[in-house]
């Protein structure tokens, strides 16, 4: 029994985090929520080299959001109870993000006898462990134990979790350094006097060493700017100079009046009428904590400092943006004279290959491309909208009807004739209301089931029931090697499945559930004979 390191970890240790401005908790104060989340991150910061900076950006490394049920990933919540939250391991795009079930009764300051609610702090610390790369631990009492355990008022990071995070990112650095002053010169020579002040005027002795934790991180090392030494009372020989071999400067340079007390201790009590001004240490790069001045009423925040530069995250977002309006070519002959192109949909219909791009489609049979093609899609299927710019997905159903997906609607044709009752909205198929469009659809011959793909998810569709099956959507990662946001998929007559994305395609091994070659092959030369 011990912690489990998942494998993925952040390459940088200065991480940013943000509470999503679009998916905030519906029943919690955002300011208080941010405070709890910051405390939860601080638990991991104190045990490792990681630092966390809050920003106001949806591109933060760790984006925290609150959602209910289906929320654009393959892990829907289940209402109040059981599943509380989940988080993604480090990575680009959604990597590191943490999602909390907004149906839960979240408590910001749980009491010991609060049995119904759930401590947000306890769950947040656990989920952020996932955001940093830790998997679940079988150690009861560990933060990464998967079942909810609440939190004690005197919480301390358990050893199992500490070992896990330090294995990945190393322990927290101790930046304490002793100052080495080879040639010390005081700012002010103390006056010599035979009288002494009372003890109440004796000033506090400042530290000499440059210690970051004393709040002066960029303190210059110029000895001339060091504070004046004040005598210690009572005398402690070499208490603060263990790491230096030089002689104590005050021993040689100063002659403080010595007063022998009844205990024979020697007390240095010169009289200093004032304390010299300490220089102000400029801290130009010290980030201002936005939480100190941020008024509770102002949310979302508009006065955040600019986020420091971080390497850009690459690739896809979970929600595919609306594609821009495509320019309509004036005629088929004006099509780009290049093989460097992509397709909207590819389908095998009646044993012939149909390739769709923009308003046009090509038909390729056993003898090659049919004459008269490319042809406008609306000439073949006249019931489609006249202002059609492109189609999203096309496939032939087991009953030989042709399904064409455009936006949020499904058109079903018997050959060229639109069936009664169509077009239908995607929600009639059991797909979520928030789904804007499908990317691809196919009937998979391996099991005879129909699959719909969109973004990072896919659904299995029951042709008999007319609805997608329960326990879907699932993550596209199941189709190993195929990226997200594909353009099309179909099964060719050779029995293989082909996924299209951009200007290339992958040949998919159905039994191994992975692409045969990670590198895409260009689509146009192979499928269009370009």
């Amino acid at each position, binding site marked *: 029994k011990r912690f489990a390191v998942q494998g993925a970890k952040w390459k940088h240790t200065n991480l940013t985090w943000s509470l999503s401005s679009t998916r905030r908790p519906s029943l919690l104060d955002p300011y208080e929520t941010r405070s709890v989340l910051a405390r939860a991150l601080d638990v991991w910061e104190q045990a490792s080299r990681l630092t966390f900076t809050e920003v106001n950006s949806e591109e933060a490394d760790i984006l925290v959001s609150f959602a209910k049920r289906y929320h654009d990933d393959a892990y829907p919540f289940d209402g109040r109870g*059981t599943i509380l939250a989940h988080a993604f391991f480090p990575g680009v795009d959604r990597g590191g993000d943490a999602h909390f079930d907004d149906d839960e009764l979240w408590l910001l300051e749980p009491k010991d006898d609060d049995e119904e609610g759930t401590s947000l702090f306890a769950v947040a610390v656990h989920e952020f462990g996932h955001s940093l790369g830790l998997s*679940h631990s079988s150690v009861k009492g560990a933060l990464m134990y*998967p079942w*909810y355990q609440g939190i004690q008022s005197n919480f301390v990071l358990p050893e199992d979790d500490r070992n896990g995070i330090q294995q990945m990112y190393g322990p927290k650095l101790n930046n304490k350094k002793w100052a080495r002053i080879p040639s010390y010169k005081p700012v002010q020579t103390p006056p010599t006097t035979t009288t002494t002040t009372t003890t109440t005027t004796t000033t506090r002795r400042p530290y000499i060493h440059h210690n970051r934790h004393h709040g002066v991180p960029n303190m210059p090392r110029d000895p001339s700017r060091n504070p004046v030494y004040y005598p210690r009372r009572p005398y402690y020989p070499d208490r603060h100079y263990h790491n230096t071999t030089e002689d104590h400067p005050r021993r040689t340079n100063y002659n403080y009046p010595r007063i022998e007390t009844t205990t024979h201790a020697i007390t240095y009590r010169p009289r200093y009428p004032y304390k010299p001004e300490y220089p102000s240490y400029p801290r130009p790069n010290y980030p201002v904590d936005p939480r100190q001045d941020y008024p509770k009423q102002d949310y979302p925040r508009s006065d955040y400092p600019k986020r420091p530069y971080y390497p850009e995250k690459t690739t896809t977002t979970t929600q595919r943006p609306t594609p821009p309006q495509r320019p309509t070519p004036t005629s088929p002959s004006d099509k780009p004279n290049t093989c460097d192109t992509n397709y909207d949909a590819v389908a095998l219909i009646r044993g012939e290959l149909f390739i769709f791009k923009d308003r046009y489609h090509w038909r390729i049979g056993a003898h090659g491309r049919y004459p008269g093609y490319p042809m406008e899609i609306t000439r073949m299927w006249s019931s489609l909208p006249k202002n059609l710019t492109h189609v999203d997905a096309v496939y032939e159903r087991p009953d030989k009807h042709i399904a064409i997906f455009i936006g949020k609607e499904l058109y079903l044709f018997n050959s060229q004739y639109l069936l009664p009752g169509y077009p239908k909205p995607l929600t009639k198929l059991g797909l979520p209301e928030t789904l804007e469009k499908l990317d691809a659809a196919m009937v998979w011959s391996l099991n005879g089931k129909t699959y719909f793909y969109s973004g990072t998810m896919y659904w299995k569709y029951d042709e008999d029931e007319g609805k997608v099956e329960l326990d879907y959507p699932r993550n596209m990662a199941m189709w190993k090697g195929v990226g997200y946001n594909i353009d099309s998929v179909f099964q060719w007559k050779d029995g293989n499945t082909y996924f299209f994305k951009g200007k290339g395609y992958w040949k998919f091994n159905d039994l191994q*559930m992975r692409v045969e070659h990670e590198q895409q092959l260009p689509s146009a030369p192979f499928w269009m004979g370009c």
Partner: protein
Amino acid sequence: APTRSRATRTAHHERSARGYLETFGYLSKSRPEVGNLIMDGNEQSYEDDFRIAIKTLQEFGGIPVTGELDAATRNLMKQKRCGRPDREEQDHENRRS
């Protein structure tokens, strides 16, 4: 509503337990689309996988390891928890290899 028979309740518990085990990585979901093809004629190993998954869950959760869907196991499945699987996909690959 008519009360369910003991056999029906048991089947219902087993179905929901199976879903729980698949959701949290105790039963492999790496090839769900071909699962029904593999299962045909191999129900014995299918049952064994279920018992092994139950035992793994019981061990992970720190409850007595019986291999049976007993009350302690059902209570564990009802507890509030994180939505991430306890066992990731690569664990399944390693176990198979």
